[in-house]
């Protein structure tokens, strides 16, 4: 059997690895982004000089050959689900590749779509100017590298995990940063107020110009089509030569909308991660669960769910029916020097049913929160 996996991120590569562990099927992994799998969550460290591309690649190059996983660098433009053929865009040229020429098409017996995400844009005027970008792909970091030479300020729009990463990246290169956060506290739709304020203090302590309750109205540009500043929602003008759009991501599936596969925000899948088309699976950021599990969302663009889904897909590809069950919610992040971990549901607001214990260190940089159900005493 010939298994083709579209996307060499954590989900696609995990699927490939587990298929190889369980079978001798032919495996092809396709990517337009990079020759080899790398840790997307570590992209920030490339720009900051903590690591090189080689260091963020979890497997040595010999790994792929040894495990008989064929890699193709190319951009798939259309998928013929009926004939089971992927067609490549002949115009696509990878800047640097050692994988050789892209074929014009590849057929499959079973297909895994592990397409990842794309940066959200909300129709802001000027959002498609030069020097305006998100942070998701390797190309995004390359373009940050190119456009951020000798700039006097960067403005980052959005108060989430990628926004703070971008702020940290610029900060590591002495580039002044202004962060526009629409909410009244950093990430306060996820963090309870105490934690949210703690992270806010951390951002300011690191010298970031944090503007809370401030949205983006417009991005200004010059004659060359480059961004030169922003106008915020209260109406302040901030001059800058780089605008980071970090207001979340969405499944990277727009190009599949007309292909016949059933989609909503993501590719709709059942609990076996099978799409509406036979022999086609979706995994990772781009998959949307038809039935949402309790305590979880139906699209979760986080590292470990991508990994778990990849493993589940591999089992189903190899004929073991395994349902996707990520267990309770957990996650982690690092906000400058504050490490954050969460296990289970942590509601932002207090509720009747739940009790919470919150401890914060005297330095205001450490805290623990425990949440539990109230028991009525008779």
């Amino acid at each position, binding site marked *: 059997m010939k298994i083709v996996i579209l996307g060499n991120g954590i989900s696609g590569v995990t699927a490939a690895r587990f298929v190889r562990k369980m079978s001798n099927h032919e495996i092809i992994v396709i990517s337009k982004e990079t020759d080899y799998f790398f840790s997307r969550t570590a992209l920030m460290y490339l720009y900051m000089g903590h690591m090189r591309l080689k260091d963020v690649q*979890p497997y040595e190059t010999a790994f792929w050959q040894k495990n008989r996983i064929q890699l193709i660098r190319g951009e798939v433009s259309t998928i013929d689900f009926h004939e089971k053929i992927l067609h490549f865009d002949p115009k696509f040229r990878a800047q640097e590749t050692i994988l050789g020429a892209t074929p014009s098409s590849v057929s499959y017996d079973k297909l895994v779509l592990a397409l990842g995400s794309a940066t959200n844009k909300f129709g802001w005027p000027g959002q498609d100017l030069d020097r305006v970008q998100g942070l998701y792909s390797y190309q995004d970091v390359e373009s940050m590298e190119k456009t951020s030479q000798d700039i006097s300020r960067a403005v980052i729009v959005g108060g989430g995990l990628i926004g703070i990463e971008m702020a940290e990246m610029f900060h590591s290169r002495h580039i002044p940063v202004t962060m526009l956060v629409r909410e009244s506290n950093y990430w306060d739709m996820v963090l309870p107020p105490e934690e949210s304020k703690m992270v806010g203090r951390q951002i300011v302590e*690191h010298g970031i110009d944090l503007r809370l309750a401030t949205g983006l109205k417009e991005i200004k540009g010059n004659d060359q089509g480059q961004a030169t500043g922003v106008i915020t929602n209260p109406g302040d003008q901030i001059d800058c030569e780089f605008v980071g759009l970090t207001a979340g991501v969405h499944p990277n599936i727009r190009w599949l909308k007309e292909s016949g596969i059933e989609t909503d925000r993501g590719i709709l899948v059942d609990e076996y991660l099978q799409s509406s088309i036979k022999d086609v699976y979706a995994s990772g950021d781009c998959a949307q669960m038809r039935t949402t599990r309790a305590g979880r969302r139906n699209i979760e663009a986080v590292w470990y769910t991508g990994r778990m889904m990849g493993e589940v897909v591999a089992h189903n590809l190899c004929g073991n029916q395994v349902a996707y069950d990520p267990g309770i919610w957990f996650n*982690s992040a690092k906000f400058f020097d504050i490490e954050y971990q969460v296990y289970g549901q942590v509601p932002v607001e207090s509720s009747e049913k739940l009790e919470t214990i919150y401890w914060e260190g005297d330095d205001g940089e450490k805290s623990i929160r425990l949440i539990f159900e109230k028991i009525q005493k008779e």
Partner: protein
Amino acid sequence: MTDQVYPSMSIADPHPPFVDGMQKLSTALGLTGLLMLILAWLNQFSGDSTLVWISLLLITSGTILYAWRQYMPLPEGIKNNGVWFGRLTSRGWLAWATGLVITFFYVCLYWYPGLVGLGAEGQSNTGLVAFFDPISMAIKDKPASQWFVYGVLYTLAILIFGVKFILKYRHNQYQILRTLSVMFFQLCFAFAIPELLDRLNQPSMDFKNMWPLNYYFFFDWNLDKLLSGGNLGLFMLVWGIAMILIISPILTYFYGKRWYCSWVCGCGGLAETAGDPFRHLSDKSLKAWKIERWLIHSVLVFAVIMTIMVIYTYLTGQSQILFLNSYNIREWYGFLIGAAFSGVVGVGFYPLMGSRVWCRFGCPMAAVLGLQQRFFSRFRITTNGGQCISCGNCSTYCEMGIDVRSYAQRGQNIVRASCVGCGICAAVCPRGVLRLENGTVDIKERTTAVRNIHVPVGEVKILS
């Protein structure tokens, strides 16, 4: 609409550009001290016994002031910004130049001590060695040797870069304690005690330096020295044998080889302090791991055979064993392993191959402790695999070239012979995945792939 321009608010500038007065001053101080050493080497200073103290003081104050300015204004946390961009830290020209200078210095020390000024056969010292005579006279009432110069500079390096390391990792208690420990053992055990014993005309010994790292422990001249050294000499002989046979296996069983390699050892001490800026240069490839296993165990076998032959010769008086001559073997060991590998390559190549080249590929002591750690120790690094994002910081900053990530992303315990337990992988992990542990609860499963329970129910205490 306001038209406000915000200046950089970066009070926490991660790598302040070189404009600060304190930086310039401290660099000038340190370089002046170094320049004095070079001038002394070239015989430009002689006679003035205060100059050497001034030189060392300048180097010390320059280094510590610079480190203070670099780290103290910043919030506590990991400081790896720009590591792969630096000329010194990413094998740029400065790294090559530094490597060459250190290598040259070592070559002189081992094979051409006359070049650094050691007086030949009863003649008085010149150059760099003479420059250190006043210190040597003050400590042990004898003129300096090239090894005295080396000892002073080595100890000074561990002390001043130890201070720098502590400032850099001041948020991390484990790093602070460990560094204070290597500083203490270098200053007292490796330097002060042996020199003072020498002054008192007693047999001198570095009590923490054990065979086979101390490969000459069983050489005839050392045994003779200890056996003729009265009660103290006898104690040293017993202590040296007890260290390798009893004390070190017990400590390694409880704490892993880290008790020695990154808390006590002088080679490790220099690697952890002066070598810290180069830790990421270690090779992480599977091939390097393979070379490591072959090389380090070959050196161990070499050391064991050489020692057996030396003891045989000592007991029987026969130096010819089969086709081998024990004196020749011992000379070759001293030249190849004792000098070339541990000294010239071990330290000279810091800026090119990372700080633990010797510890990883060559040290027979590390090989012995590593075998104990691998098969008979409580120590391991546990991993919370669910939270691992495979970023690679742990592997990159592992000075021993262990691919920590390959274990962490599978949630597997790390039990590796080479791990010196420095704890930097756990420090640089952005997600709190790694933990150095000595627990016994699940000791039998410490190398199995899937394992989740870290805390036994009995150890959980409900407060009030």
